[in-house]
């Protein structure tokens, strides 16, 4: 006991003078421990199976799950899933998330599986998914770094199979925030749709809060299949290469700065490898379609032969890096999007006409013949390489965007599926509705301005629009050449009214599970 005390005293004696010298010479103030941002504990339930047909004797099981999170400090959340009626083996692909601060150390997760029975069948049964008679899967999830201990054995970001009379397959992830105020992470793989045997390059770059590349970050890293495969410090970009095998791979890019106070992740993505008979292939799949904005990129018939056209696959990454992955707001929400390539082709045309041309030709969009089969998609993006103006068709859930100006894709996404009107003058599309970005009456604009943190005097007329109506907005348009003002004016940054509408839909989409 005394020896330990002596050792401790010795350490103090030896370190103190050094610390004092450093403090005097460098003028270093004592630095507080970094305040780490919340992380997200995510449980994804992949499979449920009644192995012994023991849940319902006269019919198939009616599974549902109850997932409970507890951070031990009063923050608790419990989620009951929907019921999958009459199926012995289901693939729910349902996820539940919980925000927790790394200062808590760990979060307890309880995962119960049940068979929904009416009173005729004796009430609900508890599915037997844990060997040894435990009533539920009980896991303590260490937060940073992620690690699991409990009634199951396995690692973070991997399938965990737990079974006795019944079986559950699930994944536990601990995710950094997709963004903090001063940090984003831009990351993409190429080739965008690799074939087996292709060398795939994943390049990750740390960006600042405005979406500009940083010179230096604390850490930029890449995980593949949940395992860290590349990491750098003292720079802002890392590259990882590997050979594509199998049908798919998954990866996640992360960045940290300011001692961990700034953090960002792409969230895990799954990428399809190789040819398929499916209607569409995921090039960036982040999660279940009922909780994601699903964007299907379709080749324009004037530009590309089809979805396997090398030019199409070459053009798309640049369009993404300058578009969805080049804008700080969409980067901050990149985990809310699934990106697909569609098998079908579509067409967008808009012949140019001089200003003042009477009855100018309209923008025309021709959907794929089988577009009704793409019901999972919130929107289809017709990618073209011929430079003409673009448009969106809400009623068809399609837009076109030129690969030569990648930010057009974000502008058109503002129209569909986010429902924003144009804010430029004079021949855009103007309409109003719930949480609008343009208003038919100045008074409505002024009344709504404080809701987005603006003074009523910020409201301005859009000018003499060709629809012969008068429209107002409080989003800015300086009109200055070379100044990008607003997403719905000139493909600039998202401003307050744009952000409100995007945020509303993204929030209800990712948390509601009732569509997007």
């Amino acid at each position: 006991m005394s020896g330990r005390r002596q050792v401790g005293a010795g350490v103090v004696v030896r370190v103190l003078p050094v610390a004092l010298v450093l403090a005097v010479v460098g003028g270093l103030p004592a630095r507080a421990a970094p305040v780490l941002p919340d992380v997200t504990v995510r449980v994804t339930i992949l499979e449920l199976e009644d192995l012994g047909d023991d849940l319902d004797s006269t019919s198939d099981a009616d599974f549902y799950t109850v997932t409970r999170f507890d951070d031990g400090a009063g923050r608790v959340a419990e989620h009951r899933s929907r019921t999958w009626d009459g199926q012995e083996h289901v693939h729910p692909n349902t996820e539940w998330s919980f925000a927790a601060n790394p200062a808590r150390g760990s979060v307890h997760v309880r995962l119960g599986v049940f068979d929904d029975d009416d009173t005729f069948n004796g009430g609900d049964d508890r599915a037997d998914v844990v060997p040894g008679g435990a009533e539920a899967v009980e896991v303590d999830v260490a937060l940073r770094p992620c690690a699991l201990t409990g009634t199951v054995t396995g690692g973070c970001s991997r399938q965990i199979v737990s079974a006795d009379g019944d079986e559950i397959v699930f994944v536990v992830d601990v995710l950094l925030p997709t963004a903090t105020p001063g940090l984003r992470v831009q990351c993409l793989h190429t080739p965008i749709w690799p074939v087996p045997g292709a060398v795939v390059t994943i390049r990750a770059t740390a960006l600042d809060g405005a979406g500009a590349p940083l010179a230096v970050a604390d850490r930029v890293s890449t995980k593949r299949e949940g395992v860290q495969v590349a990491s750098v410090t003292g720079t802002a970009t890392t590259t990882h290469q590997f050979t594509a095998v199998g049908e798919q791979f998954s990866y996640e890019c992360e960045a940290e700065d300011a001692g961990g106070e700034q953090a960002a992740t792409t969230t895990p993505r799954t990428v399809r490898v190789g040819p398929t008979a499916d209607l569409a292939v995921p090039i960036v799949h982040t999660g279940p379609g009922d909780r994601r904005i699903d964007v299907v990129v379709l080749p324009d018939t004037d530009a590309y032969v089809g979805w396997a056209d090398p030019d199409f696959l070459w053009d798309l990454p640049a369009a993404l890096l300058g578009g969805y992955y080049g804008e700080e707001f969409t980067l901050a929400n990149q985990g809310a999007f699934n990106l697909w390539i569609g098998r079908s082709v579509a067409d967008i045309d808009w012949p140019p006409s001089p200003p003042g041309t009477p009855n100018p030709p309209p923008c025309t969009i021709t959907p794929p013949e089988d577009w009704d089969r793409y019901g999972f998609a919130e929107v289809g993006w017709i990618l073209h390489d011929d430079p003409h103006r673009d448009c969106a068709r809400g009623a068809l859930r399609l837009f076109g965007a030129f690969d030569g100006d990648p930010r057009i894709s974000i502008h058109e996404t503002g129209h569909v599926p986010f429902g924003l009107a144009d804010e430029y003058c004079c021949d855009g599309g103007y309409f109003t509705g719930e949480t609008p970005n343009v208003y038919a009456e100045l008074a409505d604009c002024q009344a709504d301005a404080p809701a987005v943190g603006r003074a009523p005097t910020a409201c301005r007329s859009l000018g003499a629009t060709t629809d012969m109506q008068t429209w107002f907005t409080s989003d800015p348009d300086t009109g200055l050449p070379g100044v990008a003002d607003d997403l719905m004016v000139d493909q600039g940054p998202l401003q307050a009214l744009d952000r409100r509408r995007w945020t509303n839909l993204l929030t209800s989409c990712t948390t509601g599970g009732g569509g997007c």
Partner: protein
Amino acid sequence: MRRDRAALTALALSAAVLAVAVPSPGAAVGQAVDGPRDVVVRHVVDVPGTDLASGRAIVLRVRHTPDPAEPHAVSLERTKVYVRRGDSGPVEVAALRRDGTVIDRWRAPDPLTTSAEQARDDEARYGVPYSPDLAVVTITDTRTGASTDVKTEGVVHAFCAAAPTDELCRRVDLAPHVWLGTPGPFTLRVGERLQVPVHVQLGNDGPDRAEVAGAVSVHGILDGVGFTTTDPTGLALPRFEPGHHWWTLTYELTCPVPGAGRVFVGATFQDESAEAVETDPADNAHNTWFDVRCDPAP
């Protein structure tokens, strides 16, 4: 059997632990460090995209003139469909149950809005997630209140008739058999009451469960005889797995006047839901008969 499966699970878990134990590379300053190249643990079970056709959706193609017109095409598609929450247009789409209660409702843009970027569309397409509860889709222009109702039963029935093995559809084979609990003929006097038990057996040879609606009817070749019966109400089984079900009904006969006649008892059962495909409609009805003689009162 369970132990075998548990043992396999344990092996799988061991493999997972081994995979987890692969050491992560340390961080390097200013250069990339490649990690293990033999990562084999899959992150998800299903390959995304392979299940896109696993959902079912009803797609309506509607021309607005300017009021929403009858759809010129309604189809049932093999696709997942998610309700679009982002639109703020003046069109409301509502999915309704048979009793008129709302399953879900959402807004959609006006296809006739015209501008340079929003040229009018000839038609709007509305995708509605299929549900067994779905009976009607209502498209309403909230500005005028004009609306059109589209019943979904027809398109579901046509889909299942063409693709009876689809997971949405149920193949059923209902076959009733009806017989008397007490063999006839029966004799009774005017003013008397006679109870005749009738057994009804209903079989569902499946392979899928049925939602049964049926009835037993009585009619007679009376030859001048009159009598009354107490008829059972409609017979129903909301969830009838393949197998058999029995009812016993009691008919009460009375004779107002003397005479004789032959009484037919018929049972007819069917699954009237749109998802049901009756694989043998020829045997959905069965009859039996008995003779009655009414003697004068003493």
